[in-house]
């Protein structure tokens, strides 16, 4: 007759599992990290000339140390910045006050006009980070609106609702994110 092995008492198993559970609850976080994604440009080479742009193609946004805006040498307001950028980057044919447009043929969408405008942002060392993020956000929001406009026209959906990568790529090509940050300079007080 085989001798039965005595049963192991599993009563404390729950306690052990509880201990591990509490350890994980304490040491881990569940927060999702969100943020505005940006691609920095490589540092300029020593003897590199800054690229030249026509005045009508460039929208210069300056933010000073007291968080005030200057858009193309006129005083701007953060509340209207989104509409200003949207208006500037929209397609206007034969209008010298807006950037040039160039025809482009893109897969799926076909022939469209693409703006050659560029948004240039420059901030002072004394600008607050909060203002900087607001400006970045408003510019990004304007580009999102432009993309939505194109996506709605061709596919009947907003950009982030598009299902196929090719459609997204086509819209991104029609509305390129033409945005650059000027090389920092020391102006104003710290």
């Amino acid at each position, binding site marked *: 007759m085989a001798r039965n092995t005595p049963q192991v008492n*599993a*009563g404390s*198993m*729950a306690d*052990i*599992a*509880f201990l*591990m*559970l509490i350890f*994980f*609850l304490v*040491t*881990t*976080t*569940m927060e*999702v*990290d*969100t*943020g*505005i*994604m*940006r*691609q*920095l*440009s*490589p*540092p300029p080479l020593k003897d590199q000339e800054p690229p030249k742009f026509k005045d009508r193609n460039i929208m210069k946004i300056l933010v000073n140390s007291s968080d005030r805006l200057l858009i193309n040498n006129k005083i701007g307001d*953060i*509340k209207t910045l989104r509409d200003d950028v949207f208006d500037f980057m929209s397609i206007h044919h034969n209008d010298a006050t807006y950037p040039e447009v160039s025809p482009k043929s893109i897969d799926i969408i076909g022939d469209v006009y693409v703006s050659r405008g560029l948004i240039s942002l420059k*901030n*002072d*060392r*004394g*600008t*607050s*980070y*909060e203002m*900087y*993020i*607001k400006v*970045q*956000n*408003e510019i*990004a*929001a304007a580009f*999102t609106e432009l993309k939505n406009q194109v996506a709605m026209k061709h596919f009947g959906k907003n950009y982030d609702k598009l299902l196929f990568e090719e459609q997204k790529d086509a819209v991104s090509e029609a509305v390129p994110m033409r945005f650059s940050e000027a090389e*920092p300079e020391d102006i104003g007080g*710290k």
Partner: protein
Amino acid sequence: MSRFKQKGSKELPPISTSSLPDIIFMLLFFFMVTTTMKQADVFVKVRPTSATEVVKLEKKSLVSYIHVGPPLQAKYGTNSRIQLNDRFATIEEIQEFITKEREARNENERKQLSTSLKVDKETKMGIVTDIKQELRQVGAYRVSYSSTEVKKMDL
């Protein structure tokens, strides 16, 4: 005369707890899968900015964090300072920090590395600009300005 004779006592049998460990293990695995390990303790006060155009940072293991803000303990001053891992650092140490973060990952993950800047909203841009210049020098071009998502901006 009853045909069915009641066996044993009329007391309720004790509830079996043998499945309790299984339930707890299930909870444990749920938490292990859905959460990530806590990053280093933060010594600086970071009041997050808010924005509408935010994207989620996907692979958390491929993100290096740089915290900037006024120190929590007054003895370290009130000006914004940079925190890398779990100590205060200077601007010059950022390049070394990024290089180390890069070396800790394997070859094909290095390109996807991004840097999350967690900056207090009252910080001046001077220090942030310096950090950005250092990141450009070392080739860490993917940057995320950490912000909480809001539906509408308070301008």
